[in-house]
């Protein structure tokens, strides 16, 4: 009896802290066995690479917390990227502002389909995933455009106190979303709606408004990721930017311990999940293992993460 209890406790501990433990193990391994791992340059490279995924994953964590999913994030990134060069002539701020508004409008469209029309999130956002990429290509005439705006280029490659701006932006957004979930009425309402939508509606929560706002936030975060990725790339590439990023973001969220069934949002876990996946890829590449191995390992990690989560719902029912 105590034995099963211990085993259950181990499982629960692994579910809640496994992602952090895995990061510690991998970091220690790399410190010992990988050359040039603990250098500032390598650290910055890895963090800059993961930043767009992390920013998208923050919004995804919120949406998944409402028992939803947002497949459209990659296309929203592409739309934001396509808008930037069109309006950079009027200055950096108007261009970024318009890109963010476009992200918000995309989120509003998703939110309306989900909350008002009542379509399952997977299909509602699938429509924008398909249509949004086409829209971005139409906006950009299907062309890759070089960015020549110095301020935007500086955003992509500049540093403050030795830390790239992009990493600082991602970190600031993570803190912001963490506070939003933990300390605001909206955050609590979001978790309640995800836990039990009809009970929340009966309790008088503004379910529709909460859902709409959640998808709008996800859209805006995706647009920010699009801007950041464009700045780093020094070019607006609407055909490739953000391709399949929805899968990386969902992976980060799930590996970080947020259940797909909603009602729970773990922002720190999501950050750790994104870092872990990046760390795995980096470790395998540094040891000259090909991309194919990295993908198979990632697949195994995802299954392991959901297997550990299953024990919770299994114990409950």
């Amino acid at each position, binding site marked *: 009896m105590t034995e099963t209890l211990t085993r259950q406790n181990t499982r629960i501990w692994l579910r809640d802290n496994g992602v952090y433990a895995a990061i510690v193990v991998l970091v220690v391994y790399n410190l010992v066995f990988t050359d040039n791992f603990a250098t500032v340059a390598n650290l910055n490279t890895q963090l800059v690479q993961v930043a767009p995924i992390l920013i998208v994953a923050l919004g995804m964590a919120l949406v998944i917390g409402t028992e939803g999913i947002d497949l459209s994030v990659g296309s929203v990134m592409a739309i934001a990227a396509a808008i930037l060069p069109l309006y950079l002539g009027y200055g950096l701020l108007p261009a970024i502002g318009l890109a963010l508004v476009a992200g918000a409008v995309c989120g509003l469209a998703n939110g309306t389909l989900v909350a008002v029309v009542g379509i399952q999130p997977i299909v509602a956002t699938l429509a924008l995933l398909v249509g949004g990429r086409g829209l971005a290509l139409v906006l950009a005439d299907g062309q890759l455009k070089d960015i020549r705006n110095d301020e935007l280029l500086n955003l992509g490659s500049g540093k403050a106190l030795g830390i790239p701006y992009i990493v600082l932006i991602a970190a600031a957004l993570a803190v912001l979303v963490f506070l939003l979930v933990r300390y605001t009425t909206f955050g609590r309402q979001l978790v309640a709606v995800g836990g039990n939508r009809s009970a929340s509606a009966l309790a008088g929560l503004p379910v529709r408004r909460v859902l709409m706002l959640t998808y709008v936030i996800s859209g805006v975060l995706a647009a920010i990721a699009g801007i950041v990725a464009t700045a780093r790339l020094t070019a607006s590439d609407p055909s490739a930017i953000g391709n399949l990023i929805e899968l990386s973001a969902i992976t980060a969220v799930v590996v970080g311990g947020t259940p797909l069934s909603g009602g729970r949002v773990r922002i720190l876990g999501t950050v750790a999940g994104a870092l872990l996946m990046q760390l795995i890829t980096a470790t395998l590449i540094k040891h000259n293992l090909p*991309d194919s191995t990295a993908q198979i390992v990632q697949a195994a990690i995802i299954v392991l993460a959901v297997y550990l989560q299953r024990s919770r719902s299994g114990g409950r029912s």
Partner: protein
Amino acid sequence: MTTVATAEEQSVASGRLTGRERLASLAQRRGSIVVLALVVLIASFSFDSFATVGNAQNIAIQSSFLAIVALGMTFVIIAGGIDLSVGSVYALGGVLAAYGIQWGSLVGLLLPLVVCGAIGLLNGVLVAYGRLAPFIVTLATLLGARGLLLAITDEGSTTRLMPRDDWLTKLGQGTFLGLGLPVWITVILFAIGVVVLQRTGFGHSTLAVGGSREAATLMGLPVARNTMLLYLGSGLAAGLAGALAAAYSASGVTIVGEGLELEAIAAVVIGGTLLTGGAGTVGGTLAGVLLLRVIQNVINQIGTLSSHYQSVVSGAFLAVVVAVQAYLSRAYLRGGRR
């Protein structure tokens, strides 16, 4: 009554369905076929080059590969699941066919079926017996299958060609009565699909599991085995479609299939199958696939429009269809409850 009556049949029997509600339910199930007929009719009158034999052959062969994938997806979705891995599995099937054909056509056909079937089986075991969420399990195998594909093609840099005189290649490129052999295979598979869904115990359990898993379990249906077989079927369908597509182009191209799972889901949903499970038709899926391909074809016919509008129209179309479906099923439910 010995057969299982659907909610709709019951309300028809008790005479509670008004004309408007009957129309709504009919539009939900048959709407895609009506829209397909309308689009084809309008396109035939608008473009001289649309209603030609050559163009019809073209649309048919282009639809066939997606249709086979969507057929497996239809069954999975009717049972309340989802299979995101089909795009990767499709690509893997094609590469394996081109890889295996060096030992003969039979190996070229069986190798993709065995490997893709095994991936489908893995999905099925994890979902049915491991009780893991289908969305995540198949997301993982999406990555895993793509990784496997890269591993056997030197990280995607090798494209194997298929000899033109082997019968597997001919199976992809040959024609019968003017239509490509993959089209005929698709037609046969869909005929089998209709019979399986409507006339067999397996089909009925699939519908029952999608309607309510708990109820199906309580009724004593073999829910887990049924679910596992559905994912096995979806993997086999995707692998076969990939092998046929590779045979059609006589090469195992590594970059195909990305986003194919989404196209298949879109076709299934447009065809009137509910993502919540428990209701759907195989014929509707075929209409959904044809609609997607006809729209692409029409946009190509217009010519002046950039091809990027294809996805804009497809996406907008999907949104409109599901919005109308949601509205209709709500109107229908409201009527049924009264």
